[in-house]
């Protein structure tokens, strides 16, 4: 059973851009030890708004390390405005696909990038326009709201349509948040 692609294993075994970046002007860190992964991403943005260099430090499984590695490759040389749109799906695809229960590693990389960019801009992530709600599957708030706004209040139906709550944690982490979103939208009578 090799759940990982050759590309992913290569990025794990020969990670690119490891370490810190002393002259970074944006740093983002996500995750915690208890959950089994921490990702720290450093970016150096030049005066033209181009990401000149990026580095990472990661505590986590093979796919977390590979996701960080490829994310640095995918953003170096890109304008911040473009890099910020990097999706977790693009990371997973670039790695030659990832098993479903590992998708949260690609989400972690996107989160770390969002934080690094926010830090560079002098913002905090709470201002991030469209936060990830389901971290296992990388489902953003807008995707879930879209379904809710179509009148769907049934959590199983939301899961079926968005894939939120269907990840490795079985919805343990995101279900309460989505429940609250449903409540906020429909009010208490539902």
């Amino acid at each position, binding site marked *: 059973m090799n759940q*990982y692609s050759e590309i992913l*294993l290569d990025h*794990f*075994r020969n*990670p690119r851009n*490891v370490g*810190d970046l002393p002259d970074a002007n944006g740093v983002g*860190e996500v995750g915690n*030890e*208890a*959950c*089994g*992964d*921490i990702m*720290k991403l450093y970016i150096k943005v030049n005066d033209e708004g181009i990401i000149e260099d990026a580095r*990472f*430090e*990661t*505590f*986590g*499984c*093979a796919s*977390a*390390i590979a996701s960080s590695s490829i994310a640095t490759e995918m953003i170096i040389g890109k304008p911040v405005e473009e890099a910020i749109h990097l999706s977790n799906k693009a990371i997973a695809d670039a790695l030659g696909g990832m*098993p479903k*229960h*590992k998708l949260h590693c690609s989400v972690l990389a996107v989160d770390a990038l969002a934080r690094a960019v926010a830090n560079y801009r002098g913002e905090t992530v709470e201002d991030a326009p469209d936060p990830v709600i389901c971290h296992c599957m990388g489902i953003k708030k807008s995707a879930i709201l879209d379904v809710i706004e179509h009148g769907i209040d049934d959590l199983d139906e939301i899961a079926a349509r968005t894939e939120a709550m269907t990840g*490795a*944690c*079985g919805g*343990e*982490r995101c279900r309460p948040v989505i429940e609250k979103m449903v409540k906020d939208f429909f009010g208490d009578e539902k």
Partner: protein
Amino acid sequence: MKRVYLDHNATTPIHPEVKAAMIAAMEVFGNASSHHSFGREAHELIENARKTVADALGAQPEEIIFTSCGSESNNLVIKGVTCGNSVCKIGCERSEVIISAIEHPSVLNTAKCLQGEGKIVHLCPVNENGVVKLDVLESLISDKTALVSIMYANNETGAIQPIEEIANMISGRNIIFHTDAVQAFGKIPINVKKLNLDFLSLSGHKIYGPKGVGVLYKKKLRKVCPLIHGGHHEFNLRAGTENTVHIAGLGKAVELCIADMDSEWQRLGELRNWFEAEVVHRIPDSIVNGADADRMAHTSNISFRYIEGESILYDLDFDGIAVSTGSACSSGSLEPSHVLLAMGMDHGRAHSSIRFSLGRSTTKEDLVCTLGALERTVTRLRNMSPLWKDRIKKA
């Protein structure tokens, strides 16, 4: 590349003599229930294996039920004594089941399933070395207790459970006592009569036998309702034409492991202890989990702080070294090993754990090779870890 297999608790390679016995058994195609000579030949193979297993356990042949695996044996006893229309009076009348918090999923999830049927399941906690807390167990036992099921030795840490003490505690209270001995059988002497056990599970593939065959020992007067109803096979307790080839293989495997049990225990214990001492000496912030428990001689569970177990597993795999991990990331769940958490370990340490399980083919050279690879792996991964960097800064 030379490969090193240190995952014997997951499964073991088939012993060449077991293989030979199985190949020979393939020639014997008769149905053991048939009365002609073809049937008798198959019957004889099965009964010889039954006798070998019975002798190894100090049991009678009619107390040995062949099943399809260790998991089935565990299911058979747990469901079979508690099921609603159970032939087992105790299991029927009493409402509570006690298992330990560190059981294999085939016990844990089977017991959970009983909860849906109205039974109350108590999880007995373990101490920091992964050994069942006897005082708590004592307090959980009451006249409502139908079944106590505690594993003989844990698959992740190797911690041997105080089965004799538990048997004594239960004795005379008319409670059914089962032990999952899948990891212990064939490695340490077990006598079901001396221990006064009602049920015991074992599995072929952990003792250099084939996968897909197991045994449930059932004490003579104990009753159990079958999982698979049908013909009269296995004393009416497990229907289905017997798997002659696998049963013959299991018999051979049992014979072989009993023969050199003591010397293997000695040899593997020395190797394991040497290995652990080297690891702790050469790799900073490595901690042996459950080190102070009475442990199976071939099992070692070590946490390498500040890095994650699955990444260690994959990195060692590149060097041809096969180990396993209790980290959550290998299984896809959020929580790391329930066994390590039950020992009160913090999540970080549990996430960073690796299990090395030695076996018949393990040599000192294998372990020397593993140590070298391990040092490289741990250094490489720690150099990427923000936690390790913080640790170095603090030091």
